[in-house]
């Protein structure tokens, strides 16, 4: 199966790979996994007092599409409010990366990672 140029670009030059300091109180983490392929994705968001996402990092074990999807969302969420980031849909990710139907679940995983991180933020800030 041929990957799109955008997927290859993100796969070869992934943006924002890594982790933040574990104890940083402004950092929340979304951990998700896809049982069908065994992919594991960690997305961390650094959120300021006003609820703006200052920075994002990811670590993904999975195929090129899963890595590209998570790399892309770290770029997209930066500068967004928590609610704006929560509105990102997997279809947007799949369209941007031109993912074939069999790889749509990678974009679902990335969407769910954002949601999981924001859930943690909302629980923390109740």
């Amino acid at each position, binding site marked *: 199966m041929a990957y799109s140029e955008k997927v290859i670009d993100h796969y070869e030059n992934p943006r924002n790979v890594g982790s933040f300091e574990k104890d940083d109180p402004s950092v929340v983490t979304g*951990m*998700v*996994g896809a*049982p069908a392929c*065994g992919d*594991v994705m960690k997305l961390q968001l650094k959120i300021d007092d006003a609820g703006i996402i200052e920075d994002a990092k990811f670590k993904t074990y999975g195929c090129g599409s899963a890595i590209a999807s998570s790399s892309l969302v770290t770029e997209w969420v930066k500068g967004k409010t928590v609610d704006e980031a929560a509105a990102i849909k997997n279809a947007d990710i799949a369209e941007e990366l031109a993912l074939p139907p069999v790889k749509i*679940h990678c974009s679902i995983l990335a969407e769910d990672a954002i949601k999981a991180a924001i859930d943690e933020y909302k629980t923390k800030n109740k």
Partner: protein
Amino acid sequence: MNYFDLFQFTPAFDINTAQLADRYRDLQRAVHPDKFAHESEQQKLLSVQRTAQINDGYQTLKTPLLRAEHILSLRGLELSHETTTLKDTRFLMQQMEWREALEDINHSSEPQDLIDSLYDSFADFEKNLFTHLTQLLAKDNQADNLLAADQIRKLKFMAKLQDELSRIEDKLLD
């Protein structure tokens, strides 16, 4: 298709695998395409289809993870093509750590020791998941079936880890 019926087993997670192999041989012999060489085209086609079905059934019942999935599918819970996301953070953190350990193997001075200890850790963890899965499947009610599905999802991650580990080990031995 109920593969337990095909192989004359009561649907259960614990089955006698020696008996399964015997029945597989018997069924295969009975429908083997060579037997139908002089029959009509339709009969030949039917025998090929039956053979494929028997092979699929055997693989499904022989492999514990597939057998468990088949049991849930017979109970109306289909897991084979799902895109459900697993969100158990503790479990996934452990998966991350193990993936990182797999990456470390190539930089290790004693790679085989690391490989052996990872095999042991994976086997222990998998054994616990299977024990829990067996208990849940025996109960056969909706709440426990849903929990059993989660065990199966986790076991799929373990299968992936073991695949990766044996791939790395093969490379190392080359």
